[in-house]
């Protein structure tokens, strides 16, 4: 068993709205990321993916509030820390976060090297410009980016290059965990591929120890990450290896999500896309039972009343449903038969 880099136990965080209502966007989430591994988080918009990412950093600002649970990065518990301490000793060195529009972080009036200088100087006060430049150049070389970029202004770079520059900067201080929140969704396919290639390179060269990759593009997750976690309404509903989750999902929601995959492959045109009817529940007062119950095809009367725990299937696979694995599979087989006719 390899070293566990990030361990999260029953993390719960909430938003407090201006009407003083509590919205539990991350509800008892537990996860574990080992060294050299990457974890993908999938789910539709509003399911708490990005909130989970923000919560993992331990960097809480209103309206987001920490409630309970533990975040442990290589043995150090950072949950409940003061945001100021988090900024000084956790962000960048332990956890780095790439938001969706990371490229907007660049200052249009300054060269890229200034941006990098800022990052390094915030952590190392006494460092010469030459050292910074050397370090930045070395990093760019490792990641396969041209070193000329350092002397350019953001407007001179393409969107994909800007995104890659910012990602490169985020791994500058060798964080243990890199959280990438849809790092490639604003880019075209070729730039997306370059970003992914760079992230993989950062991992191979030991710049980062592990990665959490958040996206709703399942084909991308399948190709990038080792494990996939599916979130729904603030809870984890399924967790397993990428292969298993994509080809053999257990939870009805995950099943529906996998049915919405569109890829240019033979046979796609004949397959019918399954869309899940309805909308996720309002998290201000979530339903007492299964949160997916009202959209689920296989709903049972007890679903709406009993709260549902995670069911362990073995091999690190879990799913949140009251229906046992065997019965679920039978229902899926029946469903497929019906669709075929």
């Amino acid at each position, binding site marked *: 068993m390899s070293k566990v880099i990030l361990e999260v136990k029953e993390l719960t965080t909430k938003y407090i709205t201006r009407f003083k209502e509590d919205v539990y966007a991350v509800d008892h989430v537990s996860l574990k990321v080992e060294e050299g591994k990457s974890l993908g988080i999938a789910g539709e918009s509003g399911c708490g993916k990005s909130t989970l990412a923000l919560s993992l950093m331990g960097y809480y600002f209103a309206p987001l509030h920490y409630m309970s649970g533990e975040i442990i990065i290589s043995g150090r518990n950072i949950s409940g820390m003061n945001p100021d301490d988090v900024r000084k000793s956790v962000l960048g060195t332990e956890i780095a976060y790439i938001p969706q529009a990371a490229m907007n972080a660049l200052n249009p009036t300054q060269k890229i090297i200034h941006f990098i200088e800022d990052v390094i100087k915030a952590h190392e006060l006494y460092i010469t410009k030459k050292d910074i430049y050397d370090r930045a150049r070395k990093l760019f070389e490792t990641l396969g980016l041209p070193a000329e970029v350092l002397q350019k202004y953001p407007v001179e770079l393409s969107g994909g290059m800007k995104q890659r520059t910012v990602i490169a900067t985020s791994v500058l201080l060798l964080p243990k965990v890199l959280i990438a929140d849809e790092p490639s969704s604003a880019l075209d396919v070729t730039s997306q591929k370059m970003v992914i290639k760079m992230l*993989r390179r950062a991992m191979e060269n030991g710049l980062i120890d592990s990665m959490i990759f958040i996206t709703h593009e399942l084909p991308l997750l*399948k*190709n*990038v990450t080792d494990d996939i976690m599916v979130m729904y309404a603030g809870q984890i509903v399924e967790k397993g290896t990428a292969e298993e989750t994509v080809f053999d999902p257990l939870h009805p929601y995950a099943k529906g999500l996998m049915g*919405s995959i*569109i890829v*240019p492959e033979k046979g796609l*045109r004949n397959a019918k*896309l399954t869309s899940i009817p309805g909308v996720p529940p309002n998290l201000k007062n979530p339903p007492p039972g299964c949160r997916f119950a009202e959209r689920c095809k296989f709903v049972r009367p007890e679903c709406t009343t009993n709260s549902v725990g995670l069911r362990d299937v073995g091999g690190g696979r879990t799913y949140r449903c009251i229906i046992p694995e065997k019965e679920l599979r039978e229902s899926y087989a029946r469903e497929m038969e019906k669709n075929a006719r």
Partner: protein
Amino acid sequence: MPDEKKLCLSGQGLTKVFGRGGQKTVAVDHVDFNFYESEVVSIVGESGSGKTTLAKMLLGLINSTEGDVYFQGKKRDIRSQKKKQEYWKNIQAIFQDPYSSYNIFNKIDAVLLDCIRMRGGGKLPQAKKVELMTQACSFVNLKFDELTNKYPFELSGGQMQRLMIARIFLLKPKILLADEPTSMIDACSRATILDMLMHLRNETGMTIIFITHDIGLAYYVSDSVYIMEHGKIVESGSADSVILYPSQAYTRRLINDVPKIHEAWDLSTV
């Protein structure tokens, strides 16, 4: 079926040049196309390939430098504002960003009422208008009673895009131009939106033109596909022939760069 297809929108040598003198940018370069009635067409290309410029020319939002657009076999005439408005009754668009597609000062009722007025239903009794709006909203799985008195920004992205389809449902244009309609919403709502558009096509027989960079989506929805590179159409044909048996290197690259499920993703090409 193919031989009785009626031409809906076509173009010959359509060109758009931005700038002049030494700083010319040819955004769309002598493009020919034939879109047939009740066909779903996709125009696929990377960013900067001129897809959106072509779309704007089709909509009549910008003038073409050269070439003509033919609507239902006749040369399109949009020289005056009145004629343009007449033309827009036949062609409507859904844009990429649902958040900036609405007038933020108008409530949702106003948005939908505007569509009814545009179809000449301005003098209908109020009850009839409400019925029409409710019908349009239920077509896209929205509840009209929950939406009245709300502003567009109170909706989620997926809901806004669906409301956009409700508008199209009311307007019933001959052609719908969808410029990256699903790129800002997640995969799950994407299936819903696509289903709705296909349903709308089957019901009203409109031509849908998808402008997209997502080649998987183009393959899934369209009957024929046009691939654009640097303002030129490099490859066109039926979806199956273009996507499964691409003849151009550019098309092959586009398909290769998309992560797939059953095939391995080759990262060494970039």
